[in-house]
């Protein structure tokens, strides 16, 4: 199992898209939009601090979501059938995809937070840094489930478009790009799966507890998407 997991990570890291979307894009956006704007406020925090958490979340989300989505590509080439001939259970297969997503999300996230610290975008205690990281990783749970769901709904070809579209839509609603303050947009955003990850990360930066309401939304989305993913998985294996 360890070798299998190692190979999964190796495959991911060797993919050019991984490097672009979990390292390059978020890092460049942070350095261009975030870091130079320490004097400007975005809600309760500076724009620099805001973009640091946002881009850390963006990169991690890209890694977590595409890892699950890769199931679609493997189904397209019949790799799942090949794996079903081994002792690897469907459950372990899906778990390994989620774990790979998280494992490959970590380095990019840490790098962005490190860049934030080096540029003095946030001057906070070690506990608060850890709080940001924890908020992002836990807040991404619904995205991990969504990735797996895409993996069993999409075809090998449509997977990238579907992931891209949902990625854009959910990140808009999440407040990654701009602070969402009021109105109907806020109400929709607050019910969306990714909003509370960003909110929790920014709150953690200020040493504030995000509250059970946000945690509940994250938990509900995780359960609902995971349920959907499981039923699609069962249908896919029954048909094969």
């Amino acid at each position, binding site marked *: 199992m360890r070798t299998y997991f190692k190979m999964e990570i190796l495959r991911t890291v060797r993919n050019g898209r991984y490097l672009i979307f979990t390292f390059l894009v978020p890092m460049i956006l942070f350095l261009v939009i975030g870091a130079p704007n320490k004097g400007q406020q975005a809600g309760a925090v500076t724009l620099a601090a805001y973009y640091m958490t946002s881009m850390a979340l963006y990169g991690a989300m890209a890694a977590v979501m595409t890892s699950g989505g890769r199931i679609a590509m493997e189904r397209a080439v019949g790799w799942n059938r090949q794996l079903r*001939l081994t*002792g690897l259970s469907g459950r372990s297969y899906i778990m390994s995809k989620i774990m790979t997503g998280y494992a490959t999300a970590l380095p990019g996230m840490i790098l962005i937070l490190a860049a934030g610290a080096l540029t003095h975008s946030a001057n906070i205690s070690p506990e608060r840094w850890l709080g940001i990281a924890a908020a992002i990783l836990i807040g991404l749970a619904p995205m991990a489930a969504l990735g797996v769901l895409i993996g069993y709904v999409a075809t090998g070809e449509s997977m990238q478009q579907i992931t891209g579209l949902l990625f854009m839509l959910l990140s808009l609603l999440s407040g990654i790009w701009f602070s969402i303050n009021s109105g109907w947009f806020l109400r929709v955003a607050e019910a969306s799966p990714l909003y509370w990850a960003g909110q929790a990360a920014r709150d953690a930066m200020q040493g504030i507890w995000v509250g059970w309401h946000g945690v509940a939304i994250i938990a509900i989305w995780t359960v609902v998407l995971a349920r959907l993913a499981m039923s699609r998985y069962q249908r896919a294996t029954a048909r094969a």
Partner: protein
Amino acid sequence: MKGGIQISGLRKHFGDVRAVDGIDIDIAAGEVVALLGPNGAGKSTTIDMLLGLTRPDAGRISVFGMAPEQATASGAVGAMLQTGSLIQGLTVRELIEMLAALYPKAMPVDDVLKRARIDDIANRRAEKLSGGQTQRVRFAMSLVPDPDVLVLDEPTVAMDVETRHAFWGSMREFATSGRTVLFATHYLDEADSFADRIILISQGVIVADGPTTEIKATVGGRTIRATLPGVDVAALELLPGVSKAEVRGDSVLVHCTDSDAAVRALLADYPAARDLEISGADLEQAFLTLTEVQTR
């Protein structure tokens, strides 16, 4: 523990299509068996059920005393599926290592590479392989669990001549080590040159099952067609190498067990014979005939 493979009353329908319609097969350990039949005969469905990839509607399958899923997961069965490709991002060696890590007692990676004759491309990335090389790697994957039974679903379909040759070479090596091999094919030649036993399958049922030589005599002979008016059928059937003769207007159709001998004798005895045509076994036709006989 009971060795070999036992299949009884196996059935699988997809809607109105009776893909597999009551199949019984008993294969002893160490046998090399070809599952021969035209496209759509039910070969792949049978194999998928044997591997635990598809659940049968009815029937029982036992592989070395185990249920199919259990047999494959334990590594007792290795398989090369009909369709499928490789995942990207890993070298051939890494791919084999990855699969080996999932079996309880895998064959050492170097042995797999050598047996499947892919040690020369071990460090090449999967996405850079040619079609033939990909097939060789897929064959290698079936060897990874160091299986007692090897199941191959039309393994040579996507292979070029050279790869095919190398493939049967490695297969022979594998089979001589006393292991059981079951392969599906729609080429009589392949079944003939490699299997000890042929199971003919058509429209979801077994139409013949026996030693290769026997099956080949039933369906595999060549046919000579010639224009030869007013000939005595009984006399034709006495010629060497001839099993059966038919008259169709001015032409005769001579079914042969040995067409070389038959054609020499035919021309010697009947110099008037002209427009000679010799054709190989037409499997589709043979299957049709065999199934018609059965349903009648």
